[in-house]
Structure formats: structure tokens, C-alpha cells
């Protein structure tokens, strides 16, 4: 279990514009986001001695970004090979590195040309090696196709329906209308949702996240140092990473997973809440990894906001809207803000806890949950101000 409650804090955040075609190298996006985060923290590059990222062979290496920024001596420069599950892992890893004495102040980033470059939701190598030999030749290739298989099982087990997913998609779009960073700000009605194109049953287009070019970064340092910096520190109360015993060869390999009506969060929940010393009832606002509408239900159920199978009814009747009991994805999420592989959720969490979220601000927000990942492996953090 993560044992560093409140010892480390996020002190700076930075991001590029989120676009469909950046026209830039991924490294330059990463460097821009990192420099903005360092400046936001009131620090100089010389104050940073660690850099950590995650990627799918679609990004710039951490040490390359460190080189472009002129970091003199990066004591901890690491790239995790990870999908969406990595977005909260790298921040926990930064805390661990500082605790171990490998660095004092670490910048964490995710950068990608996710629309104009390598598209995660697109095709794959046409030679099917490893576990892919049992999936790709069947025409089961993309992440929407993978997650649709999970969503169907939730429908079978619990009677979940597109009505529930429509509530999620339209709620997050409504949040995006208050977010100048969001790629999709046009209002979406339930009719718009139901009329959107069938991609892979049971998913329509608006069940599926955006594809984005862009980068996000945060700076993490000790709580003592954070108190001398310009912004209100956002403390990392708790966190967890993992997902049980049958995660398979990669995130797509769910053939062995016990049931696709739950995901990694069922296995993370005890460590997550235990590390922070709180429970779901204490969360004021949450940023849930929404690569698909359906993944939100599995996180809510797995982490105990509701019982298994009750995620659909739970999100109805305004509960997850801005003025609801549990506001979710206040910037619009991966469905409507941008898909920076879930790292944009961490930036929104920090803005909410600083009280800097403008028209999106949840009044009095003190504790924010962030999650990352949707299938067999994931990560999560509890942040507080």
C-alpha cells in the first residue's frame, strides 16, 4: 500500500493546446507542457532533477525532453511502457523516487500526437504475434472493439443500457462547454447521442473518446518545499496501481479476465482508500478515466461508490452533473475535453483543488479522486488541498 500520505504535492501544472493536428514533434509538445508546469510552480529548470513519463512507443523519451529543457543532472529519468493505466502510476512513481532520494523535484508528463500521428484507436501491425494472434485475425483490433466486448457483458449481467451511457456522454459534454481548453464544446443532446453513428455494437460514436494531439505535465515535490511555492499545494493523500491476477499479456488480452462487467478498480479499491484513510463518501469531485462511457461505470462500481451492477442507475438523475452529489469529469473528460491518455484528468483535479477552475469550479472542493485505465490494469490517486 502507498505509505506516503500527504508527504508529496503537485505544485505546478502545464499543458499545450489540444488539437487534431499539432504540426509539431511530440518532443516539442512535451517540452512546452513541462516548461509551463515548472514555471507555474514558481521554479526554474535548474530546480528539477527528475522526469518521468509513460508511452506506447508513441512519445518522446523522458531523457530527450530533459535534454531539450537543459536539465543538468536528471537523477531519475524513466519512461513507463503503459497505456491509460499509467496516468496516475507516474505521479506515484515520482513520490517514490523522491522518498528514495533519487530526486527532489520531479516533472511528470504525457505527450502524444494521438490524432495526427500514432492513433491508439486505429489499426495494428498486420502480422499478429503473441496474444494478438488470437484476436486481430478475427477483426478484433481496436480499443473500441475491445471495450465493447466488456460493455456487452455488463448489459447481460445487469441490464445496463445506452440510456445510462447517454447520461454520461451528455453530462461530460455539458461540462466541456465551460472549458475553453476542450476540443468539443458544442452542446450534445440525448438525441445527438442516440443518432450518432454505430461504430461497434453496443457502442455509438459518442461512447468513444476523442483523439488528440497535445501534452500535459505536473511538477511534484515534497510537502515542505510545496508550502514555499506560489500555489496552494495539492497533496497526494493516497494512490494505488494494479489490477488482480489475470491481467494477461497486454491491456487487450482480456480472454482470461474473470468477468468483463468489472475492471481493475475492484482490485485497487482497498489499497486506494486505505492509503488515503478515507472512503468514497468523502470525495467531493472525481475525474474518472473515460476512454469510453462504459468505463466510468466499472470505476464507480469497483471503487465502491455503488454496488456492482448499479453504476447505470447511479449516474442518472443528475448525480454526476456539476451541481450533483458527485460531480464527475468537470473539464469534459476524455470524451469531450481531450485524450491525453488520462493525464489531463490530473490537471483538472489540481485546478479544482486550487479553486482555479473558473466556471467549472465545484464550490468547496477539498478532495478529488483521479483514475486512470479502464480494463485489466489501472491506477488512481486521492488528492486534497
Amino acid at each position: 500500500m502507498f505509505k506516503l500520505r500527504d508527504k508529496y504535492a503537485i505544485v505546478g501544472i502545464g499543458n499545450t493546446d489540444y488539437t487534431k493536428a499539432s504540426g509539431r514533434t511530440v518532443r516539442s509538445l512535451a517540452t512546452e507542457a513541462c516548461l509551463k508546469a515548472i514555471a507555474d510552480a514558481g521554479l526554474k529548470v535548474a530546480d528539477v532533477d527528475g522526469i518521468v513519463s509513460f508511452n506506447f512507443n508513441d512519445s518522446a523519451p523522458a531523457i530527450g525532453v530533459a535534454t531539450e529543457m537543459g536539465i543538468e543532472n536528471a537523477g531519475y529519468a524513466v519512461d513507463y511502457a503503459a497505456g491509460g493505466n499509467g496516468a496516475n502510476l507516474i505521479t506515484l512513481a515520482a513520490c517514490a523516487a523522491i522518498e528514495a532520494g533519487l530526486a527532489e523535484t520531479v516533472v511528470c508528463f504525457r505527450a502524444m500526437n494521438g490524432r495526427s500521428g500514432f492513433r491508439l484507436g486505429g489499426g495494428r501491425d498486420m502480422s499478429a504475434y503473441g496474444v494478438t494472434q488470437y484476436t486481430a485475425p478475427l477483426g478484433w483490433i481496436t480499443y473500441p472493439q475491445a471495450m465493447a466486448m466488456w460493455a456487452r457483458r455488463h448489459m447481460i449481467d445487469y441490464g445496463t443500457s445506452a440510456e445510462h451511457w447517454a447520461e454520461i456522454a451528455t453530462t461530460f459534454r455539458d461540462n466541456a462547454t465551460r472549458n475553453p481548453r476542450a476540443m468539443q464544446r458544442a452542446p450534445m443532446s440525448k438525441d445527438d447521442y442516440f443518432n450518432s453513428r454505430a461504430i461497434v455494437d453496443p457502442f455509438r460514436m459518442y461512447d468513444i473518446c476523442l483523439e488528440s494531439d497535445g501534452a500535459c505535465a505536473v511538477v511534484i515535490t515534497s510537502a515542505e518545499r510545496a508550502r514555499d511555492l506560489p500555489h496552494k499545494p495539492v497533496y497526494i493523500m493516497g494512490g494505488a496501481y494494479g489490477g488482480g491476477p489475470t491481467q494477461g499479456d497486454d491491456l487487450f488480452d482480456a480472454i482470461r479476465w474473470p468477468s468483463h462487467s468489472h475492471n481493475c478498480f475492484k482490485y485497487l479499491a482497498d489499497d486506494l482508500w486505505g492509503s488515503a484513510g478515507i472512503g468514497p463518501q468523502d470525495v467531493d469531485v472525481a475525474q474518472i478515466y473515460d476512454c469510453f462511457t462504459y468505463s466510468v461505470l466499472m470505476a464507480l462500481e469497483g471503487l465502491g461508490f455503488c454496488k456492482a451492477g448499479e453504476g447505470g442507475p447511479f449516474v442518472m438523475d443528475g448525480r454526476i452533473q456539476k451541481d450533483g452529489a458527485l460531480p464527475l469529469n468537470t473539464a469534459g473528460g476524455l470524451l469531450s475535453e481531450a485524450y491525453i491518455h488520462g493525464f489531463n484528468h490530473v490537471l483538472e483535479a489540481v485546478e479544482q483543488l486550487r479553486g482555479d477552475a473558473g466556471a467549472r469550479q465545484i464550490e468547496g472542493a477539498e478532495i478529488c479522486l483521479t483514475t486512470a485505465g479502464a480494463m485489466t490494469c489501472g491506477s488512481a490517486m486521492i488528492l486534497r488541498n
Partner: protein
Amino acid sequence: MDAPMTAYHGPLPVPDSESTPFWEGLKARRLVIQRCAATGEHLFPPVTFCPGSLERPEWVEVSGKGRVFSWIVVRHPVPRDIYADQVPYVVALVTLDEGCRMTANIVDCAPEDVAADMPVEIAFRPITPEITLPAFRPIGG
């Protein structure tokens, strides 16, 4: 009877030291998967060590019968140049009668007729002289 054979342009499986008996079995029109003698469990995808016992599994022919655990209907083709004339098509997770699950297309069944727990049986879909893909069709369908 074989599933309908059409010109195949999709990803080609690359058999390896763990999977060759599976693909050789399909080529011979037999569904051959692993079973761990120590735990009695059938295993798919193939492994070198059974996670339950850490023993090396044996290869056995199984009934080829099972039930649909979950399924998708692909309507938007990705990549388009390969799947544009294939959609809509069905991919399923099938729970074999022997207990483990495997992936396959569902054939000889309209997409809207696929149902949870529908009983299915193995069909064989030769795509090259070396490779035959697994498929399932409704029993009695």
C-alpha cells in the same frame, strides 16, 4: 462443413512455440487446446506454465462446443481497406464446455440473432494453406 471462405486480407497469425499445436489442430479440423493435468483446468491462450500449478500443460482435443459469453458487432471497418466489405461481422468470447474461454467469429448467424449464452459449435475457416481460423456457429442453426 467449412465456414464460407472469402479472400483474406486481414492480420495473419504468426504461430510460435507455444501456439503451434493450436494452429496445427485447426488446420486438421480439430480444436486442440491446453489442459493442466495437475489442476484439471483447460487453458487458453496457450502458456508454458499453468498459473495454478506451475506445471507444463498437455494438449488435448476438446468438444468444440460452448456458449456465447459476450460479443460485439463491428459496423465501422478498421482498417477500412480490409474490412469495408466484411461489416457487419461478429466477434465473440465463447465459454467452452470444458470451462475456459476463447475468441472467435460467429458465423452462419445474423448479428441481431446472437444472444447471451447461445449454444455454439466450432467451425473452421481456412484462410491460407497453413492457417485456419476458429469460428463458431449456432448449434442447430
